[in-house]
């Protein structure tokens, strides 16, 4: 059975997108990406170290020809910085599919939606294909879609918190209303959280810290792969209705 998903005309088999931050070293990072089965990784854009240009680079360990690099704007707190970063990313990588996030404050890393919406409009006009980190608000998600977002990526909980999907209702409402892929971005802490996101009908999940800060990141990467697949299958299978009380699974007739 092939169960693929598409964003902006590109098709992928894996519904798990992983970050490349916080790992002990590049070897561990590459091994975790392999174990996760991810076909897309998020990357950041930063100044090169001009005093040590021979320092190892991410591209030496994770091949951008095999794994899609999704440049993101983590660390940008206004639209202009995010747009500038992605213009550089497009020049560095040569592709238009990018992840936009414009943060509102350091404490919660919640998105600044006014700046996010503005940046989405500008980027879309410049030919970018922005996948956009956003609040778990169905109205905001529609506004982003109208502004040119090719995917909406609501947070499940604050970035790096590992608190899991805090509001299943709003994630479900976003999924029901969206005409573009919805991916939970941020908040996943363990495998069951990823399964929940998929059971709600999301097209995929993006995570970083849940894998990178696990005691065994490579084993957790595999767990996340299986959880995303399990959650997706459960969503497609259609779960049973919930009852308020018990309902026996064995026949009542023929009891001794």
């Amino acid at each position: 059975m092939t169960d693929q998903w598409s964003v902006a005309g590109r098709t992928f088999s894996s519904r798990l997108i992983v970050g490349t931050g916080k790992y002990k070293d590049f070897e561990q990072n590459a091994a975790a990406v392999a174990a996760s089965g991810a076909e897309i990784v998020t990357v950041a854009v930063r100044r090169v170290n001009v005093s040590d240009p021979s320092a190892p680079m991410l591209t030496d360990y994770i091949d951008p020809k095999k794994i899609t690099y999704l440049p993101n704007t983590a660390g940008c707190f206004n639209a202009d910085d995010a747009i500038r970063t992605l213009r550089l990313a497009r020049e560095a990588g040569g592709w238009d599919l990018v992840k936009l996030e414009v943060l509102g404050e350091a404490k919660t890393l919640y998105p600044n939606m006014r700046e996010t919406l503005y940046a989405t409009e500008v980027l879309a006009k410049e030919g970018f294909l922005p996948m956009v980190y956003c609040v778990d608000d169905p109205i905001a998600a529609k506004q982003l879609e109208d502004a040119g977002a090719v995917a909406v990526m609501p947070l499940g909980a604050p970035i790096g918190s590992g608190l899991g999907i805090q509001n299943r209702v709003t994630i479900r409402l976003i999924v029901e209303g969206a005409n573009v892929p919805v991916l939970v971005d941020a908040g996943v802490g363990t495998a069951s959280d990823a399964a929940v996101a998929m059971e709600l009908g999301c097209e995929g999940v993006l995570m970083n810290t849940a894998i990178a800060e696990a005691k065994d990141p490579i084993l957790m990467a595999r767990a996340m792969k299986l959880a995303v697949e399990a959650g997706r299958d459960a969503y497609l299978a259609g779960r049973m209705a919930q009852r308020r009380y018990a309902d026996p699974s064995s026949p009542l007739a023929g009891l001794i």
Partner: protein
Amino acid sequence: MISIILNGEPRQVRGGSIADLVASLGLDVKKVAVERNRDIVPRSILGDVALAENDVLEIVHFVGGGC
């Protein structure tokens, strides 16, 4: 020698093109992107754009990062 700001730091460099500068820094031009005075300089013309006094350059690449 001319004075430029490279990745936020003042620096004295020989003139020439941006491609010359990138090469002199030991960087692979295919793995970086360059912004000059807030405008992207396409990779295809890095060899044609001459450095000028007080240019502000940003040279960036991809690093590990999450969400």
